[in-house]
């Protein structure tokens, strides 16, 4: 075993320069992982304060204005600085070249630039938050954001604007890499679904992000110069802002969830030791979600004063995007059917994803139902819906992926017992936090309220209790994953006996990923028949 001490991407070079100037996609992925974890805890910290305030109907912990800043900054950090970059910039960055048998992304320097843009954007936004905050909600609706808010709107928005370019660079990079750098024999329909998901996500990023960029730029212009692009008092139309905002932000929700779906497909097949059911439908569904996702943004504007006919069109289209999601859920189930399922932590997260995404998605149908949305829009029902998908779905998928590829990334195994325990804590805490919010919402409790009528208190207390459990649940993996860096068992190249090119190279992979370019001769998920599952390959 001593011979195994070969050079990998982690020990080729040491020192901050070797990281901060690295163009190795694997190192950049680590940089991203550290940064988004930081922002996740910042966002979670805001969430905890919010939940504490909501323990009682009165505003006793923080003042109205502070509370408004809390949810704005919570939403902004979580969406823009955590969830959107989470899977693409960390797992995608690490795995896309590995999974397609390439030595790196097509444009490694742009990749590094993308991280720097992320950091610059983050510093802008973070500084602005610390030095005065922002209180517009993550949606920045005009004219509140341009003419009335007295907070640091401009620096925050500038930060997000810069971040947009970081996103775009990652997207362009992935698209070109997947098009041009696949290993010999790796045809499109031999790609793992994770790659399909990254590809679709990148397409969305590339087509949607420029629109939010220009919209935020116009917002800045309007605020700085006091002109009226979106301000009705000066002849503008605030609904135009909302259209432009949601043209990005609805597709953005698929930027957040598609990569998770890709992860889940990998996890399910690996731990059911079975080929994915309906591979072609799964790939097609991913692309369909990406494309149809662009047609439904108006469902955020049913009561905004948008024309009734437009609302009806957007509602109908929203149902179309639900269908490919249904296809995915059922195909995952069918993959488990007659599998040989072993319950490692990643699979628990995958189960969590499927269950919670289903609930979140189905309640999305409530919101897309026009008349019901009139009642529940801007209430906690919406808050519950999107946390179910984003926290219950996307974040679970991210954690599942982190656990699954942790051995590949670090060469170490995480402690299985603790990991299972924390997955359970998260699941319980999550449901306790957000299920009561569905009821609250239907009862009519508006969102973005820091004081509320006393009859809503019981459910709010439950929710806060859940959030506490959830917070602890997040601290456990944070702790043991760091612990495992030094103390974890050595993993070996393929601890899960998984298929996929990333498992054919050593863990952690060498600097240029593969000793020689792999040649692909079969489709993905070619799991051996069950009798032979004991066979361990790789090793050497």
């Amino acid at each position: 075993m001593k011979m195994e001490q070969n050079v990998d991407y982690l020990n080729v070079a040491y020192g901050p320069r070797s990281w901060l100037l690295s163009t190795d996609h694997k190192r950049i992925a680590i940089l991203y992982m550290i940064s988004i974890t930081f922002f996740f805890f910042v966002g979670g910290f805001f969430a905890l304060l919010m939940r504490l305030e909501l323990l009682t109907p009165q505003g006793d912990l923080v003042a109205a204005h502070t509370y408004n800043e809390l949810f704005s900054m919570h939403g902004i950090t979580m969406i823009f600085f955590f969830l959107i970059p989470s899977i693409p910039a960390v797992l995608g960055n690490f795995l896309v070249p590995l999974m397609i048998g390439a030595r790196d992304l097509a444009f490694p320097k742009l990749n590094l630039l993308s991280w720097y843009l992320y950091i610059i954007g983050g510093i802008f936004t973070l500084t602005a938050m610390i030095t005065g905050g922002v209180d517009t909600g993550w949606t920045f609706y005009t004219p509140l954001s341009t003419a009335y808010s007295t907070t640091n709107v401009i620096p925050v928005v500038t930060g997000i604007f810069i971040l947009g370019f970081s996103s775009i660079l990652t997207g362009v990079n992935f698209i070109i890499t997947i098009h041009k750098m696949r290993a010999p024999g790796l045809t499109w329909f031999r790609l793992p679904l994770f790659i399909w998901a990254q590809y679709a996500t990148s397409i969305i990023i590339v087509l949607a992000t420029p629109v939010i960029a220009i919209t935020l730029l116009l917002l800045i212009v309007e605020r700085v110069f006091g002109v009226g692009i979106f301000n009705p008092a000066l002849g503008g139309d605030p609904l135009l802002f909302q259209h432009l905002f949601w043209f990005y932000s609805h597709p953005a929700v698929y930027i957040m969830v598609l990569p998770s779906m890709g992860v889940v497909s990998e996890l399910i097949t690996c731990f059911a030791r079975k080929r994915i059911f309906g591979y072609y439908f799964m790939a097609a569904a991913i692309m369909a979600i990406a494309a149809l996702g662009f047609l439904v943004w108006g469902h955020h504007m049913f009561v905004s004063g948008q024309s009734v006919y437009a609302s009806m069109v957007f509602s109908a289209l929203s149902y179309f995007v639900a269908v490919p999601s249904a296809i995915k859920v059922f195909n995952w189930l069918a993959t488990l059917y007659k599998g040989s399922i072993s319950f490692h932590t990643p699979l628990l997260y995958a189960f969590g994803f499927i269950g919670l995404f289903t609930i979140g998605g189905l309640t999305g149908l409530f919101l897309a139902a026009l008349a019901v949305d009139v009642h529940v829009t801007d209430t906690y029902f919406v808050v519950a819906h999107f946390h179910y998908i984003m926290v219950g779905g996307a974040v679970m998928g991210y954690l599942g992926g982190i656990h699954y590829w942790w051995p590949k990334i670090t060469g170490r195994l995480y402690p299985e017992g603790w990991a299972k325990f924390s997955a359970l804590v998260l699941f319980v805490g999550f449901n306790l936090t957000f299920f009561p919010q569905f009821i609250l919402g239907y009862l009519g409790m508006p969102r973005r309220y820091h004081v509320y009528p006393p009859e809503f208190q019981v459910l709010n207390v439950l929710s806060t209790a859940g959030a506490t459990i959830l917070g602890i649940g997040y601290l456990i993996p944070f702790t043991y994953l760091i612990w495992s860096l030094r103390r974890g068992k050595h993993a070996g190249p393929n601890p899960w006996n998984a298929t996929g090119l990333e498992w054919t190279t050593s863990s952690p992979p060498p600097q240029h990923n593969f000793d020689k370019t792999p040649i692909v001769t079969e489709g993905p998920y070619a799991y051996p028949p069950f009798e032979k599952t004991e066979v361990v390959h790789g090793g050497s």
Partner: protein
Amino acid sequence: MNNDPSIRLYFRIGIILMLLLALTISVAYIDLGPYNIVIALLIAAVKATLVGYFFMHIRTSPRLVWTFAIGGFFWLFILFALTFSDFLSRPI
């Protein structure tokens, strides 16, 4: 100057572009009611297509390039179509 056929093509396209520019300016001075903008944008589209097709070599590019070029405009069309579907059917 050599007489490489593609150079001659480039110059020819250049001249056509200038002629279209002249056309678009002169048409603008005629009152065609709502059709002025239609014609102006049509001419612009033709010019853009010429630049794209010949100068940017879409003509000889792989299909993928076509896809991205057209895809961008198609998505722009989506943005326009659905946004205008709101503004044109108001108020109700």
